[in-house]
């Protein structure tokens, strides 16, 4: 009960205490309280190009084993999902979620004319562009833009757990918020000098929209920091998360979700997947960190009855070559698998057939599902906005969400 009262107090504080300029004023408190119950998307980016073939292993496939004499995982090692596919042995927690019908594995996700550069391919995934198109905004950023037209959008509507903001969260009109730690962001904005600057009276500068934009951004940063700081006090997780960056960031996310922050999208990266040499140990360790992190995260959410409102999407900028290289590793590839996890998946399990290892494009997998179809499904069916405006065209949705 006391939680509820605090919560009301804070929400009224957040919308009234600061001298908000007109363009920031939310259109009503009703939206605020209803959106706290809304659905949340958590995007996990495996940076460096995760080896999908050794994550979801086609353990029965002879071509797989021929191409990977050193790295291949056998029937006895993998955690079998069905007759042909099994998860990497590090993914025990994910296997349990799979058994409970809370995981969907989508194979061969990619895009036409794949790019094998980390930066460019990540760019394509984050901006949701074609491979011959350069966009300066991200798909989540454009989600903010589109929601912005209905009012009540703040930077913390989309949060990246990082100290700098990725392209994915940059919209044309509004950008998400990057922070590793709401507390330190709050402290930074509470600096008395910055507080004075964040309260300047507003009149518009016709010829200098950049000045308006700078001040608007500062005021938004300050009010979002305050909001998140207040929120993060409501629920402190006692669950045990792995003691690494990724675990710490997931813990922050679960605390904000469970505290009822009106954030709709969280974005977090787990990096190190560029396994060109001696992949075996490194890959197992990275997947274990991933697995331990999401296991703790999902448990935490379940305990608080929120996993039904949360969708976790895990992706990587590309998969790796079918054939292992001479250094006991794998090189940059193309299409890859992608995971969706939630307490309310429409269809769980392995969504489509295992990747075709015979029909390759210069040694790489051919994509079968355009990644933007996944985005469209998330935007339309989970975040409940019109994906067409955000993605620039209409994509056929997957029947998972």
């Amino acid at each position, binding site marked *: 009960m006391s939680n509820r009262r605090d919560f009301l107090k804070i929400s009224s504080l957040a919308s009234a205490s600061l001298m908000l300029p007109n363009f920031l004023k939310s259109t009503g408190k009703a939206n605020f309280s209803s959106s706290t119950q809304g659905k949340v998307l958590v995007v996990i980016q495996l*940076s*460096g190009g995760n080896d999908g073939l050794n994550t979801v292993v086609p353990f029965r496939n002879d071509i797989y084993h021929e191409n990977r004499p050193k790295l291949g995982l056998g029937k006895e090692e993998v955690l079998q999902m069905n007759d042909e596919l099994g998860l990497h042995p590090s993914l025990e927690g994910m296997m349990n979620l799979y058994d409970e019908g809370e995981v969907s594995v989508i194979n061969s996700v990619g895009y036409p004319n794949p790019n094998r550069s*980390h*930066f*460019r391919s990540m*760019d394509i995934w984050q901006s949701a562009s074609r491979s*011959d198109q*350069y966009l*300066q905004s991200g798909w989540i950023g454009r989600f903010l833009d589109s929601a912005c037209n209905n009012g009540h959008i703040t*930077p913390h509507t989309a949060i990246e757990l*990082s*100290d*700098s*903001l990725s*392209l994915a969260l*940059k919209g044309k009109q509004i*950008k*998400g*918020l*990057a*922070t*590793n730690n709401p507390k*330190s*962001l709050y402290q*930074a*904005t509470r*600096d*008395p*000098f*910055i507080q*004075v*600057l964040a309260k*300047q*009276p507003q*009149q518009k*500068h016709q*010829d*200098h*929209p*950049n*000045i308006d*934009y*700078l*001040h608007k*951004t*500062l005021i*938004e*940063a300050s009010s*979002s920091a305050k909001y998140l700081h207040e929120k993060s006090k409501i629920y402190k997780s006692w669950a045990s998360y792995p003691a690494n*960056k990724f675990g710490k960031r997931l813990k922050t996310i679960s605390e904000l979700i469970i505290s009822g922050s009106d954030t709709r999208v969280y974005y977090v*990266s787990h*990096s*190190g997947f*560029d396994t*060109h040499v001696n992949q075996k140990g490194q890959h197992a360790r990275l997947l274990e960190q991933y697995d331990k992190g999401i296991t703790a995260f999902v448990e935490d959410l379940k305990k608080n009855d929120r996993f039904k409102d949360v969708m976790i999407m895990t992706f990587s900028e590309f998969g790796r070559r079918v054939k292992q290289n001479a250094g006991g590793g794998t090189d940059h590839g193309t299409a890859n698998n992608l995971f969706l996890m939630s307490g309310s998946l429409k269809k769980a399990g392995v969504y489509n057939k295992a990747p075709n290892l015979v029909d390759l494009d210069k040694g790489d997998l051919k994509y079968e599902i355009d990644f933007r179809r996944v985005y469209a499904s998330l935007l339309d069916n989970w975040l409940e906005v019109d994906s067409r405006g955000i993605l620039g065209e209409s994509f056929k949705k997957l029947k998972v969400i």
Partner: protein
Amino acid sequence: MIAKQQQIQHLYQRAGFGLRPDELAKKKGRSIPKLVEELFRDSEKYSQLRFIPDPLKGRSDKEVKDLKLAVLFVKSFQQLQKLNLHWMDKMATDSGQLRERMTFFWHNHFATHVKISWLMQVQNNTLRKHALGSFRKMLHAIAKDPAMLIYLNNQQNTKKAPNENFAREVMELFTLGEGKYSEQDIKESARAFTGWKTNRKGQFEFKRKQHDFGEKTFMGKKGNFSGEEIIDMILDKPECAEFITRKVYQYFVNPVVDEKIVKDLSKEFYKSDYDISTLLLNIFLSDWFYEEKNRGCLIKSPVELIVSYKRLLDIEMRNERFLLQNQRLLGQMLFNPPNVAGWPHATEWIDSSSLMIRMRLPGIIFGMDEFDIEVDPEYESMGVQDNEVWVPKRQKAHANWKPILKHYRNVPTRELAGAIVDNLILSPKDRIDLKALRDFADNNDRESLIKTLFIRCMALPEFQTC
């Protein structure tokens, strides 16, 4: 007098990387045309980046003959970091401010990244050589630039299997812009660039055997066009002059384009056969360039911001890596553009987190605040360990305050804040609270007061404009 002073500041912020208050005072007596002339004169002679030694030097003929491109990779990552810092220093200190500024502009326009640091240095020097000269010559040179050919997959562009990447970007991003050519034009011109390659020594080589000498149809004309002829045919189109002019206008005048001015400028640019100096002179000598709406209407890019600190105060960090970290955090690492379209522009640089970092940076540089920011190791693919990118929380910097202190020695204490703001900021100042600046400055003695006012002023949102 203030108006004149602002015009001079404006000129040096756009044609260079800013001006120290004492330098500004010295220039006040001179007319704008004189100063513009001086800017060009100071850029006539120039020095190139010679930081990375020529990998072919000191090798025997046989060694050179057997050289593998891979040899050039050795130590490349570390070298590129140092080259980055080296160039930033050059931007801050070189007397040819206009040339460095333009080299930086072209560095973004012809955005390239390859992992061979030597080739990045070669390209940078090519851009510097042509920065104020003929865009025609620069385009021809860059089309044979070893780094560019690798970056845009022209290594894979052969008669048997044409690769269109290079041909596409040349037209879409470097010369004409989307919609001014057809897919057919891309296909046909890609054939003209077949066999244009970087050889094992890291030099351009025309591989006759891989080149398609056949007939091509390009922009409605038929012929056995070579790559060079294709480039000239592109340059023949006035749309190319307009595309470059528009971009120069957006970076040097205002992100919001005045169509009539751009039309007029581009006609002159085209008539001059793409003489970059003509284009810039027409801008810097115009009246409209100095209009209030064009002053302070841009946002300093991260590199421009860091260089402006260096230029104002001659800052040298105890830990230079700190500056690289901040390039990365704020989203602009020299020699590492996000893609061939280059970096974001204007307000795209600013989000809540980048603005907070920008506002804290001056305090962090001078040890008044801690650098408690985590930088994600994006570059692990290049074999860099975590500990190599780590920098200490407490930063130490050496700055040269002498000319600043001397410059303000006769300014009454009450007027200091106003004078410093006037010297550092050109955009509207109505939201700058001078009282707050004074309240948050160190009032113990005059020297501390000037220093802290300066540092506070560099933290203002308005300082991010230029």
